[in-house]
């Protein structure tokens, strides 16, 4: 068993490096005696020893999660708070597995399942009420177990019926750990979020075309408790703050023109009011300029240079995906279906196991490393840094994922996938809309290249590539600084004859393309870090959702990609005239 302790304020705790320190007996007692951990552990023990339905196997693994959440939210327009609230809640989840590490009820879809009717979902007490917590897990364990036991029985029957060898274990064995971060849960000062959103939104009174712009600020903090039947017990706090400024141009119908987004783990560490107001000013100038530009309507196939945040978007779009070329591990579930489907599943899995080793997915100069403990890069705080994942697995300080363009490994949890039989510690806590769950997600990723060059040299490269393609111009694209992902985009057309650069209003770029990482022909020798809140495989988190997984990515400032197909598909936004004048117009 590993023992791990952090008593430093948790922001600093994120910078703590392994190896683990020995817990003092007092702290060991402290975690084991914590009412939430104790309630979970006692109920796990009771269920593991006594829970069994006639005709079915006992559970072999039980894990419980409890998360205390503090959510503060404020939305303002024109200097007035429209909506403000602060809530506290406690969410929970339970995992009950029947079988063993090699074969269990998971990774199996029982499509012919007969449903059992059990008592329903119950809310967890928000106080550290020992019996109240046990009561909820008692019912949950009962219900999950009954379903799992039936699935397991069916799965074993299927395997026996089709005489199939089970190729990949269902659940990895990991060393139990005690981890206790004693920091208290962070919450911004009362009214702090209201004051900031109110003051920032008042700025739009100075911009009559942007009067309908909204400012949203929120902080979501959690203290996560986890206990499992293998002996892992941990208490992990986390926090995430965001300020989103939705710029809406148009008198009436609120056409969204762009979004400024800021993230930090502490609300008070977000940029100062004056900085944000300066960014708004800059953004409004950019949007106004963009609107005055001609639209780039051509279909183009040739070299493209991406600059600024667009580079981060490009790598996220192509790396943070599941599937054969992505960094997020995933596993096809065995389905209780026809014999043909069943056999196909195992044929595909066998093929995947044979083929998935060191597959070339990018140019030979490209490397990708996961650096989970890196908390700062050239003065930028990296919000993706973390110590331990949601299953109590401590990631390695450095994990090479792509080496010389070949895929070495993927981010994984305790469900083994082709070529990765153990967790590498990336089943991360995921906070969204008042709930905490877990998802496979990176913390800090660094994308680097063994051959890089200056920005000026990249411009020359772009020109040469375009000439080779017998084009009259080359393109480079960048997102407006500080905007959210993918919009709006300025396209710059570089004339090869005279070298003039013409800015144009471009369509959002479709950056996720098959084999596009193999088409990188040049990268800058300067790097920049970006923070964002990621919503798992669903992509970046939009305005309607609050939370996700904080991640950071370090990428070159510019890349040149050859053979990029650009298609203009801009959807016209038509602003309707108002019938009567508004109060500000008068």
């Amino acid at each position, binding site marked *: 068993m590993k023992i791990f302790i952090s008593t430093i304020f948790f922001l600093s705790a994120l910078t703590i490096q392994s190896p683990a320190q020995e817990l003092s007996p007092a702290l060991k007692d402290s975690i084991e005696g914590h009412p939430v951990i104790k309630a979970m552990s006692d109920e796990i023990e*009771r269920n593991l020893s*006594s829970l069994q339905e006639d005709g079915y196997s006992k559970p072999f693994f039980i894990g419980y999660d409890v998360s205390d959440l503090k959510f503060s939210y404020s939305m303002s327009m*024109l*200097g007035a708070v429209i*909506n403000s609230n602060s809530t506290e809640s406690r969410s929970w989840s339970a995992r009950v597995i029947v079988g063993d590490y090699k074969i269990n009820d998971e990774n199996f879809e029982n499509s012919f399942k007969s449903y059992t009717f059990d008592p329903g979902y119950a*809310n967890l007490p928000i106080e550290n009420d020992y019996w109240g917590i046990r009561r909820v897990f*008692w019912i949950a364990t*009962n219900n999950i177990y*009954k379903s799992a036991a039936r699935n397991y029985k069916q799965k074993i029957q299927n395997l026996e019926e089709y005489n199939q060898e089970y190729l990949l274990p269902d659940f990895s064995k990991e060393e139990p750990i005690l981890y206790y971060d004693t920091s208290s849960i962070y919450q911004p000062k009362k009214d702090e979020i209201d004051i900031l959103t109110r003051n920032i939104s008042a700025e739009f009174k100075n911009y009559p075309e942007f009067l309908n712009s909204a400012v949203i600020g929120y902080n979501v903090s959690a203290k996560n408790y986890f206990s499992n039947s293998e002996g892992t017990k941990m208490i992990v706090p986390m926090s995430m703050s965001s300020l989103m400024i939705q710029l809406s141009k148009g008198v009436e119908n609120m056409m969204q023109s762009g979004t400024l987004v800021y993230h930090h783990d502490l609300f008070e560490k977000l940029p100062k009011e004056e900085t944000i107001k300066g960014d708004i000013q800059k953004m409004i100038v950019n949007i106004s300029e963009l609107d005055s530009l001609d639209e780039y309507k051509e279909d183009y196939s040739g070299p493209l240079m991406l600059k600024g945040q667009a580079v981060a978007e490009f790598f996220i779009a192509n790396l943070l995906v599941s599937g054969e070329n992505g960094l997020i591990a995933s596993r096809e579930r065995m389905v209780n279906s026809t014999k043909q489907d069943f056999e196909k599943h195992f044929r595909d899995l066998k093929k995947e196991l044979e083929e998935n080793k060191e597959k070339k997915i990018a140019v030979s100069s490209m490397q990708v490393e996961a650096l989970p403990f890196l908390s700062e890069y050239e003065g930028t705080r990296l919000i993706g840094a973390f110590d331990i994942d949601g299953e109590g697995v401590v990631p390695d300080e450095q994990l090479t994922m792509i080496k010389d363009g070949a895929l070495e490994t993927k981010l994984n949890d305790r469900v083994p996938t082709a070529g990765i039989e153990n967790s590498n510690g990336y089943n991360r806590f995921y906070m969204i809309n008042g709930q905490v769950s877990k998802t496979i997600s990176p913390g800090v990723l660094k994308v680097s290249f063994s051959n890089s060059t200056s920005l000026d040299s990249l411009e020359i490269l772009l020109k040469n590539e375009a000439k080779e393609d017998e084009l009259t111009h080359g393109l480079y694209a960048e997102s407006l600084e500080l905007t959210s992902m993918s919009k709006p985009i300025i396209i710059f057309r570089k004339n090869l004859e005279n070298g003039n650069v013409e800015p144009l209003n471009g369509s959002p770029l479709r950056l996720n393309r098959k084999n596009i990482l193999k088409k990188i022909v040049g990268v800058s020798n300067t790097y920049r870090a970006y923070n964002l809140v990621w919503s798992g495989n669903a992509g970046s988190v939009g305005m309607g959702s609050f939370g996700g997984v904080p991640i950071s990515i370090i990428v070159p400032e510019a890349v040149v990609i050859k053979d990029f197909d650009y298609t203009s598909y801009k959807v016209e936004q038509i602003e309707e005239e108002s019938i009567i004048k508004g109060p500000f117009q008068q």
Partner: protein
Amino acid sequence: MFRQFTLVGFLLIISLPVFSQDKLMSILAEEMKREMQEFSSIERAPYYMEYRVSDFETYNINTSFGSLISSDSYTNRVFTGDLRIGDYELDNTHEVFGFSGGYQSYSSSSVPLPVENDPMAIKQMIWLTMDQGYKATLEQYKMVLNAEEVKENEEKIDFTKEEISVYSEAPLIAESIDTKEWEGVLKRISSLFKDNEFIMDGDANLQVSLERRYFISSEGTRIIQNFPIVNLSIVASILSDDGNILPLYISYDARTIKNLPEETQLIDDAKELIRKLEQLRNSQVAEPYSGPAIFSPRVSGVFFHEIFGHRVEGHRLKDESDGQTFKNKVNSQVLPKFMSVISDPTRRKFGDAELTGYYEYDDQGVKAQKVTLVENGILENFLMSRTPLLTFEKSNGHGRATAGYIPVSRQSNLIVQSDKVKSEDALRKMLMKECKKQNKEFGYYFKDVTGGFTTTDRYSPNAFNIMPTEVYKIYVDGRPDELVRGVDMIGTPLTMFSEIKAAGDVVEVFSGHCGAESGFIPVTAVAPSLFVKKIETQKKMETHIKQPLLVSPEFEFKESEKQ
């Protein structure tokens, strides 16, 4: 965690001059004046405009099996605007057939409004909403003008002219209460449910909603009213051996927290609820039945709300898709001669019970009125909003809606009266006599109810369903009354009215929230017990839920301690 909240005392003071001190009303008035002036210069200007703003302050405490589940509060402000194009006789709301949807819907525009009284931000959001609302309303109006049916429709007016009202209640005066104390009270109540291993849900909850409601119209009406509602509920269910969840609940409604029962009373009521749950668990499932029955006052209240109240809501009688049960029955006998029914939103209390259907002005700014709907069995009137009927050309102050919805005629405090009452014993004797006559072994006594629903349209059976929670068989041969379960009461309205034969001398109040096309509104039904010659029941849906494999950890611990 939210630890201390303020609760508002019940102070409704009629004090007209306070408008000048109410900043929000001033902002609304300025913007309405400005918008009406702006609209006046365009063709097809609205002839009527209204703003409604609801300022909400809500507190919730939820407990379950002795544990605090949540304790929080929030504030929000909702704007609902409406405007009408045309004139009082023919406007955009006129019913039009011949396009998708059949019935011309009312226009409504609703948005969250700043919770702070910032004039420019509020005005900007109202303008955006009303300007967009105008465009949608104009399209409706054009459709009305193009529809052939308009001239043939019998109703001559789309919107009634009403007296202009100016009324304001003083802001609610806050009184501080100890949230901790209430959390403790609720936890102590819900912890009582822990001692029975078959109880599946055992909750005690408190909700306090303080709403300050603003109404302003272009006709000049300005109303500010307070709607404080306090609800304490005790909700529990037990699992029967055959896998059915059997729920019971107790609900206390008041306009101030001081009017809730003392803790000792709440504890006694919760213990009684547990006793009934245990009885229910051991009771038999009733078979479908047709025969005599007695309704307790609470059941009668829900019965009248569903099968009578919804059918006298005036706007339905203008809707061709509605069953219009009573449209042509004015001055006809619809109930037994000994029965009368009134709707009285001006009544605050019945005995000690506060009536949550009380208000001074409705949500169209019309003064609330006591309306006699049925006098000695004869139908006299309908519940009217500003949508008139041919023979009922004025509102009687029953246009109601929650924030975000356009008002329609709705119920308030429905009071069922009988001028010939009988004792409970006499009702039982009547029941037994009727059972013998019908050759029935037993009749039913419906003692309590969770609610009901009814359908009034023409596309589905014009029926009702009342969902009782406590039902007894009353045996003709003198056996003790037997509690049964799994029964729903069903039927059709006109048949049921003709089966009412007598009313009891005990009258009680049922309070609840009624959901319909203009949202959920608080209502009450005050009624005596009733004897009906024939009712029909059907079986409730069964769930087949299984008892958990292990007993609850706390129950197991306590049992081991005993040994």
